[in-house]
C-alpha cells in the first residue's frame, strides 16, 4: 500500500510536470486522439519538448536514490552516498576532461561528455571497490568511507586544476555541468542511460533481505546464510552502474543519493523490501519536482537543478530529522 502511494506520486509527477512551463498546455488536449499529432501543439510540447526532460529527472532521481540506499546499508553508515564515496567526483572529472579537451566521439547516440562522466564514475567506484576488496578483515567500513572522502577531495582538486588551465567558455560549460542539468535532447540519451540502469535494478531486486542483514554487520549476515563476498559484489556493481548512468545523464546532482533514502526511511521504516522500491519511486518524484522548480522559479532563467535539490532538500531533511527527535 505504501509502495502504491509512492508509485502514484511518481506517476502523477511524470504526468503533471510536463504541463508546466512557459507555454500553458492542457492534459485533455495532449491526449485528445481526434487531433492528429502533427496538428496537436499541446501533444508536441508534452511529448517532444518536456517529457524527455521529466523522464530524465525520474531516471536520475531513481538511480541516485537507490545507489544511496545500497551504499548506506553496505557500509553501515548513514553518510555513505555517491557524493561521499568519490563517485560523483569521478564522474565530474570525466565530464570535465571531455569538455575541456573538446572530446568528439559518441556511442549509441550518447555524446562524449556523458560517456566520459560514466567512465569517470565507474573508475572512481572501481577504486572504492578495489579498496573494499583489499580491505583486511577487522578494519571498519569507516576506513572505506574515509577513503571515499579522500578520493573526492583528490578528484575535486584535479577538477579545479583542469578548470584553472581551461579558457573561460570551457570553464563556464563545466561549471554548469557540475551543477547538474536535466536538459536532455530527445529520448536517445534517456534510452542509453536506461539500459545500464535496468541491469542495475535487476541486481537490486535480489538485495532487500541481504541489505537488511548486511546492515547488522558482515559476520551477522554470514551467520544467517548470506554469501557476503557475492552480495557485496552484486551490490557495489549495481550501485556503480546506476550511479554512472544517472550522472552521465544529469550531472552530479547533489544531495539526492543521501537525502531520499533517509526521507523514505523516516516514512516506511528500515525494512529494505520497502526502502528500495520506495526510494526508486520517491527519488524520481523528488527530482522531477526539483527540476520543475529549477525551470520555473526564475523563468525565463533556468537554475541548475543541483542547486535546487540542495536548497530544498537540506532544510526539509533537517526539519524531518528534528521533528522526529
Amino acid at each position, binding site marked *: 500500500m505504501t509502495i502504491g502511494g509512492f508509485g502514484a506520486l511518481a506517476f502523477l509527477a511524470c504526468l503533471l510536470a510536463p504541463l508546466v512551463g512557459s507555454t500553458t498546455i492542457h492534459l485533455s488536449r495532449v491526449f485528445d486522439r481526434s487531433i492528429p499529432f502533427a496538428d496537436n501543439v499541446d501533444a508536441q510540447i508534452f511529448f517532444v519538448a518536456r517529457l524527455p526532460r521529466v523522464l530524465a529527472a525520474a531516471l536520475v532521481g531513481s538511480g541516485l536514490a537507490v545507489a544511496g540506499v545500497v551504499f548506506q*546499508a553496505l557500509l553501515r553508515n548513514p553518510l555513505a552516498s555517491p557524493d561521499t564515496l568519490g563517485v560523483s567526483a569521478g564522474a565530474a572529472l570525466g565530464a570535465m576532461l571531455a569538455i575541456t579537451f573538446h572530446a568528439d566521439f559518441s556511442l549509441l547516440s550518447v555524446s562524449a561528455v556523458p560517456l566520459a562522466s560514466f567512465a569517470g564514475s565507474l573508475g572512481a567506484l572501481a577504486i572504492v571497490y578495489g579498496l573494499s576488496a583489499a580491505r*583486511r578483515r577487522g578494519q571498519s567500513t569507516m576506513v572505506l568511507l574515509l577513503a571515499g572522502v579522500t578520493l573526492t577531495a583528490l578528484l575535486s582538486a584535479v577538477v579545479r586544476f583542469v578548470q584553472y588551465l581551461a579558457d573561460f567558455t570551457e570553464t563556464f560549460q563545466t561549471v554548469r555541468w557540475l551543477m547538474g542539468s536535466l536538459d536532455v535532447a530527445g529520448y536517445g540519451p534517456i534510452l542509453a542511460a536506461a539500459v545500464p540502469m535496468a541491469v542495475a535494478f535487476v541486481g537490486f531486486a535480489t538485495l532487500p533481505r541481504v541489505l537488511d542483514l548486511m546492515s*547488522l554487520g558482515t559476520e*551477522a549476515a554470514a551467520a*544467517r546464510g548470506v554469501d557476503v563476498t557475492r552480495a557485496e559484489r552484486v551490490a557495489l556493481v549495481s550501485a556503480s552502474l546506476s550511479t554512472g548512468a544517472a550522472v552521465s545523464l544529469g550531472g552530479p546532482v547533489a544531495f539526492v543519493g543521501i537525502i531520499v533514502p533517509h526521507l523514505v*526511511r523516516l516514512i516506511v*521504516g*528500515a525494512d529494505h523490501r520497502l526502502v528500495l522500491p520506495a526510494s526508486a519511486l520517491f527519488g524520481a518524484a523528488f527530482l522531477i519536482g526539483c527540476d520543475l522548480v529549477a525551470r520555473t522559479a526564475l523563468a525565463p532563467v533556468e537554475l541548475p537543478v543541483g542547486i535546487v535539490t540542495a536548497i530544498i532538500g537540506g532544510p526539509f531533511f533537517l526539519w524531518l530529522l528534528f521533528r522526529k527527535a
Partner: protein
Amino acid sequence: MSDAVLEAVGVSFAYERHGRLVLDSASLTVKPRTILGLLGPNGSGKTTLLRLIAGTLVPLSGRVTLDGADVRRLSRRDLARQIAVVPQETHTTFDFTVLDIVLMGRYPHLGAFELEGAADVAIAREALAATGTAELAARPFATLSGGEKQRVVIASALAQASSILLLDEPTASLDLGYQIEIATLLTRLNRDRGTTMVISTHDLNLAAALCSEVVLLRQGQVLARGATADVLTAAHVRTLYGVDADVQFHPRAGHVTVVPIARSV
C-alpha cells in the same frame, strides 16, 4: 567420536598471513543436546574458535565437521539452517523493529526473490514468545535495554530453526539480573527444545551452572577439556588467569562455584 554433532579437529588460524597463530591446532567435540563452555583469558582464541565452528572463518589447517561432514562443503545457507550465532553485541544502523530483527533469522529458509510469508511471521512470533519478548515486537530494536536486546537476538537465532546455537559471551555487558535471566533462558531452551549450544564466556560461574562440559583455551591451544566438574579446578583457574581462587561445590547452586581471592604470584 560417533556421538559428536559438531567437531573441530586440530584447527589453526591466523588473521594475517604468516602472522601470529590465534588458534594452534585446537580440538573440541560437541555432543548433541549438550551445552559446551569455551573458557579462556582475553585473546586466547575463544571468539575465533566460534567463528571457525560457525563457518564464517576457514581454518588454515585442521577441519570442522558437522554430523561428520566438513563444513566447507556446505553452502552458507545450508550451514545457517543448522547453526545459528548470537554475537556478543548487535548494533543496527537503521531503525529496525524487534520483529524485523527476528524475521531476519528466516533468511536461510527463503529463495533469492522470496519474501517472508505468514508461516515465517508465525515462527518469528513463536521465537519472541519463547524468549519472553513478545510484547516488544513493535518496538525499535535500538531503544531496548541490553538484556532485552540479547533476548531478541536469541529469538532471531531461534527463528533460524537450527539445532545448534553458538553464543559469544552472551552475558558480557549485562547486569546480574539480566545475567541470570539469560542463563535461565538458555537452560530452558536446552531442556525443552534440546538445542545444542557452545557458549564462550569469562563468567566461570555461568559456565559451571550451564555447561556439562568445558574447553579451556590458553594462547590458542586447548589446555584441558572434559566434564565441567573435572576441568574447572583451582589449578586450571590459576594457569588460565593467574588468579588464586576457591573452587567448591555449592549445594544451593547445585554446581561448582569459583570465588577469586587474589592475583597469584
